[in-house]
């Protein structure tokens, strides 16, 4: 890989640049982010009171946030509204209500702003008859890059693809296609980079390198927005996180804060053991569980302190002369965090 020398260095990132407006919160989105927006200077991307309705389906509901330079992740389950938000930011569709501004303008109407956005869309489609160099070169040319061939080669090498590969992109693997899209998004040096599930299809090594690259781009002062439905991916990005669920912004903050929220909420643990009814009663009596039910041969315990339950379950079982078979958390995944956040609202 040989990075292509460019004539002008990238701008230095402004001080305190990697900020998402709005403090970490699982309060209603409007309240949480609204306070943040008024406290902060205008963001590179500003989403204010935005809703998007397709027929009877509310894809995005009253979302407000502002994003400045650095890497920001939109985290949410499939169908949460992340791609719709990205599409509105790029001007690909208009909001039903509210306003979206990128670099102070509406990308749907402002040609110059469109030239400062790099988008890697979620869909796998590319111009399949072109090879990667042609594809990225077309992106460079349509963005008015002065030296499109050189720029395309640079961008492809940056994502570790061979610019001289003569195969059309239809013959590429999913990971190669993903990197081709990324090269096309990067080739014109955008100020705002919007990447919809960019890590899909990449192997672990490519994933790690991609994450490093996104961090570099963010550190150079660009606004890098990345969507994902995998918490661990977002954790590796070390970024600020906007959690989207059911079309709403349900939380924002960094990974550590989100992790704490996961740990602080009530947990459900399934315990398979002999004498499940006795064990259930003992769990409630000891205060380890705030609620229990017996399903089949297992106790499903609701606990506020999963660590304490882990420590105390074995002595309790021993005291009851009950044999423990499995102890398994039921909701230690991102989906249940989303569910919890949505239900709390």
């Amino acid at each position: 890989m040989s990075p292509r020398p460019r004539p002008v260095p990238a701008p230095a990132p402004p001080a305190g640049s990697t900020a998402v407006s709005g403090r970490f919160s699982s309060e209603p989105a409007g309240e949480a982010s609204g306070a943040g927006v008024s406290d902060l200077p205008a963001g590179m991307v500003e989403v204010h009171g935005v809703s998007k309705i397709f027929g009877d389906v509310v894809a995005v509901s009253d979302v407000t946030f502002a994003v400045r330079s650095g890497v920001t992740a939109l985290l949410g389950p499939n169908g949460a509204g992340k791609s719709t938000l990205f599409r509105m930011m790029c001007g690909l569709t208009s909001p039903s209500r509210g306003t979206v501004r990128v670099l102070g303008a509406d990308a749907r109407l402002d040609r110059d702003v469109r030239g400062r956005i790099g988008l890697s869309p979620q869909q796998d489609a590319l111009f399949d008859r072109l090879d990667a160099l042609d594809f990225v070169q077309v992106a460079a040319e349509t963005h008015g890059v002065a030296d499109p061939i050189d720029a395309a080669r640079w961008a492809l090498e940056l994502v570790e693809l061979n610019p001289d590969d003569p195969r059309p992109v239809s013959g590429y693997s999913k990971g190669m296609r993903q990197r081709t899209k990324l090269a096309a998004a990067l080739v014109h040096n955008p100020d705002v980079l919007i990447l919809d599930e960019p890590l899909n299809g990449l192997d672990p090594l490519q994933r790690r390198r991609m994450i490093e690259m996104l961090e570099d781009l963010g550190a150079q002062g660009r606004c890098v927005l990345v969507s994902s439905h995998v918490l661990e991916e977002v954790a590796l990005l070390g970024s600020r996180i906007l959690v989207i669920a059911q079309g709403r912004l349900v939380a924002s903050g960094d990974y550590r804060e989100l992790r704490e929220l996961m740990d602080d909420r009530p947990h459900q643990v399934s315990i398979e053991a002999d004498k499940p009814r006795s064990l259930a009663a003992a769990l409630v009596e000891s205060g380890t569980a705030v609620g229990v039910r017996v399903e089949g041969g297992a106790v499903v315990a609701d606990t506020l302190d999963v660590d304490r339950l882990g420590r105390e379950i074995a002595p309790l079982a021993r005291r009851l002369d009950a044999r423990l078979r499995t102890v398994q958390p039921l909701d230690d995944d991102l989906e249940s965090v989303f569910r919890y956040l949505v239900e709390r609202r």
Partner: protein
Amino acid sequence: MSTPAAASASTAARRRVGAVRATALCYRVLIRQIVSMGRIAALGALGTTMIVVGWVVGSSSSRNGSSAAGMIFDGASYADGFGLIVIVPIVSLVFAAASLGDARDDGTLVYLWLRPMSRAPLAAAAALASVTVSLPLCVVPTVLGGWLATDFVAGSGRVALGSLAAAALGTIAYSCLFVLVGLLFRKAVLWGVAYILLWEGLAVGLGEFAERLSLRGYARALLARIAEVDLGLVTYRLVTAVIVLACVSAASLVLATVRLRHIDVD
């Protein structure tokens, strides 16, 4: 995949993409996307059929001792009945509807839409790409088929010339119209076929007013006027036919541009 600051591209290295340049860039991409061996083979076979049948018609008419005027009429009718009614609209539909319609359906439109370019060059490029591919596939069989059907009698050159003008202008008008249809409807080919069969094919038989709203009538008028034959129904003046076909082409492109401004892109 690291990006040293020195390696990052410069916004200063970007320049505005003018309309002509934008049209050329979009054209280059779209023409490669719409041309496929399958489409060319299928539509080429249709054209070849017209040429072969035209030759058979011409030979048999000649053997049967038809008059020169009759053979001129047969040739013009054949160019109209096969070329202008079937080949020109169908070929134009396949490529024009695909130019932006396929890109919209498969999600590649975003790579041309989210660019610092105005929308008109994209619509113009789609029409140009469609016309580039459709024109030879429409004009060659219509002209050759019609001409062969006259068996080269005296005056058959007028049929060839009329077929050339009618097929060429018809292809341009249909292509522009179907670029618009591709942006208005998903599965645009089905809508286009319905339009060709139900409106251009059947509704024009409903009367003079309906025929005034069909492109085929104006293309046929060109053929009839230049070949100097009466093909029945309404025959417009040559200038009227040219102006209407040009206006339909221009209006379709304007509407396609407006549609591109307001379209939801996946």
